[in-house]
């Protein structure tokens, strides 16, 4: 009996030590309690706030639901140059799904994965939870996966896709500033737009909502806040502004002077003013066959001769851009970028 007790004590001690040394990570998404009710409806629990971006990253036409959970009683301070500096304890939540039929959202949807960015004392951590076929919960997955997805697109065409779920290293393939894992989307300029909040009669500007509910401090008058145009709504910005906004969110997480594609010398950040760095008459460096036989990243007036268009059009894994998260052609943004290059002098 005593032996058992000692063994049990030792085991308990060992488990304590191990758990003390190892980050504990919930196995199931439901363990976090982010959502209430039927999981497929993704109804946020108290303290979990939905948000959207004006111009989001294209991910093979997947739809995304975004939520933020700030630590209780804490807020984030306004800054208009970078992604907001969220306090330790913040979780950013993003669920990827496909409607069964893009024309009829009421026909239901399939949740694929929920990605978390968790701000821990030693930095941001990325976690990926993959939804089970029953759509009752999502399970932690570190090594990534591929899921066959079928849906009917906005034009009524049935489509099938091998949807890639990233492994944890791939998360940092994009969420990377000088090798530090970093959120990409939620900046003031991207959040400066309206959202229909549950229970509210009309839409409300997200920055104002965040300020009103104590999530955001130091907000200047809205008119003074930068605002990313909506890439496919011409009334929100000029052709140039919308194209640059699209490139910024889709490309600049790597193509910036501190990102993983810094080796290329191509910087597609919204603030880049050097035309060569932006790709205009810039020769490729290590594009390999990604050049598509073209001499320059962007040839003003000639989208068909521009490597940028070639690589955004290609679905070949060796050529296509972005390298991760795109296997289908995003026809609509290509139209925008073609028009942008066509209009260049």
């Amino acid at each position: 009996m005593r032996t058992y007790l000692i063994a049990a004590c030792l085991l308990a001690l060992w488990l304590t030590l191990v758990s003390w040394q190892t980050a504990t990570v919930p196995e199931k998404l439901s363990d976090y309690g982010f959502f209430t009710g039927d999981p497929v409806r993704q109804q946020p629990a108290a303290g979990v706030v939905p948000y959207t971006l004006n111009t989001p990253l294209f991910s093979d036409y997947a739809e995304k639901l975004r939520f933020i959970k700030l630590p209780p009683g804490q807020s984030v301070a306004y800054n208009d140059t970078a992604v907001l500096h969220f306090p330790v304890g913040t979780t950013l939540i993003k669920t990827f799904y496909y409607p069964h039929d893009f024309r009829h959202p009421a026909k239901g949807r399939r949740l694929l994965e929920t990605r978390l960015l968790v701000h821990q004392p030693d930095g941001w951590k990325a976690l990926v939870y993959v939804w089970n076929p029953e759509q009752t919960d999502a399970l932690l997955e570190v090594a990534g996966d591929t899921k066959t997805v079928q849906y009917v697109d906005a034009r009524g065409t049935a489509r099938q896709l091998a949807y890639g779920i990233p492994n944890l290293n791939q998360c940092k393939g994009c969420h990377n500033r000088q090798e530090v894992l970093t959120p990409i989307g939620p900046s003031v300029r991207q959040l400066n737009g309206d959202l229909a909040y549950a229970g509210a009669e009309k839409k409300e500007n997200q920055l104002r909502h965040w300020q009103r509910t104590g999530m955001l401090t130091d907000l200047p008058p809205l008119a003074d806040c930068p605002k990313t145009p909506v890439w496919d709504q011409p009334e929100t910005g000029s052709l140039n502004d919308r194209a640059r906004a699209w490139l910024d969110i889709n490309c600049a997480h790597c193509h910036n002077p501190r990102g993983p594609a810094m080796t290329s010398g191509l910087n597609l950040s919204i603030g880049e003013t050097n035309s060569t760095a932006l790709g205009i008459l810039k020769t490729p460096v290590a594009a390999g066959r990604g050049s598509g036989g073209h001499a320059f990243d962007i040839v003003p007036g000639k989208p068909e001769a521009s490597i940028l268009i070639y690589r955004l059009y290609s679905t070949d894994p060796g050529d296509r851009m972005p390298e991760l998260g795109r296997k289908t052609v995003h026809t609509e943004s290509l139209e925008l970028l073609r028009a942008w290059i066509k209009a260049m002098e």
Partner: protein
Amino acid sequence: MKPALLLLTTWLFASTLYAQSDVQKRYQTKLILADDGSTIELDAGRFTFTSSLSLQDKKRIVIRGKGIDKTVLSFKGQTDGAEGLRVSNGENIVIENLTVQDTQGDGIKTMNVKGITFRNVKVEWTGPPKSTNGGYGLYPVQCDNVVIEGCTAIGASDAGIYVGQSRGIIVKNSKAYHNVAGIEIENSRDADVFDNEAYENTGGILVFDLPDLVQKKSGNVRVFNNYVHDNNLPNFAPEGNIVATVSAGTGLLILAANAVEVFNNRFIRNQSTGTGIISYLFTQRPITDKAYYPFPTAVSIHDNIYERNPGPAIARSELFALILKTGSEIPHILYDGIVDPATLDSNGKPLPERRICIRNNKNQSLINLDAGQGFKSMARDAAPFDCQLPPLKAPALNAR
């Protein structure tokens, strides 16, 4: 948060067991969970992957197979990720004893690694050389302390062994064939390239310095004791890439690089140019990078052996037709003659420390193309280049 917390490691090991059949997940999980200082042993056999494998944020890791052609990682039919294996943000990483095949993009790319060693690694694209092959075989970029030894690269549509924007480099005892460029050192500092065999590529060895890159200036590159032969493969690089401009039949090409010493090499049957020394201006590409220096200076070519078969250049360009008008054979060494005026003294003579020196090579013959003046006064006179620069030092390396 509910109390039923599982330990990450425990759960992951459980999942590893479930995923035994799935080699992609098994190896990727190993790479993600590897503790610093550990060795990841790969089994003998042939394994097919549909997605890139990646290792990141790790220190002192060895990825070890059972040998070249014994552990074969094939990426034929890859659907996700551009490269085969990608290593980023690490320290002291060793990759050894394995083969990587048929990746869609680059074979093994390592970025931001301080101390990266490739030992007994083969990267190849099977089948005949073609433009749809990936760009680079071994591809360390922005790394410190790079060692490539006993490696083989075959079939790259850009460079088989490519070291870019790095510092402290040794490439030795390696082979590169059937690539557009066999071995390329680009925008890199302090490199030794020796005891290699580069053959049957379009160009055997390239030392390049290109504009618009983060690491601007290359230099202190020594190329010695290499056997560079039969590099006469038609160029199959996709247009737009700088290597697509390399002529078939090139042994060694130095483009805008500074402080390069080339000695004790054998340049044999490279049927256009044994050794070329050119400015970036020669490519006629635009330069907008103000911090870029487009001229090759302080280049020393000595004690090499040159041989070639008689006949016209294998590259059928106007340039070689022009050169043949100056003599019956194509000279072994071509210099474009485009000089930075700032490297000349008040009498128009080159400053001694910035000179191009060509001396003491077996079968030496050279031509100054006078490309800056429209090839008007091409000259085969070796006397202006008969000088010696102080020998360069071996790079100080701190790698495993």
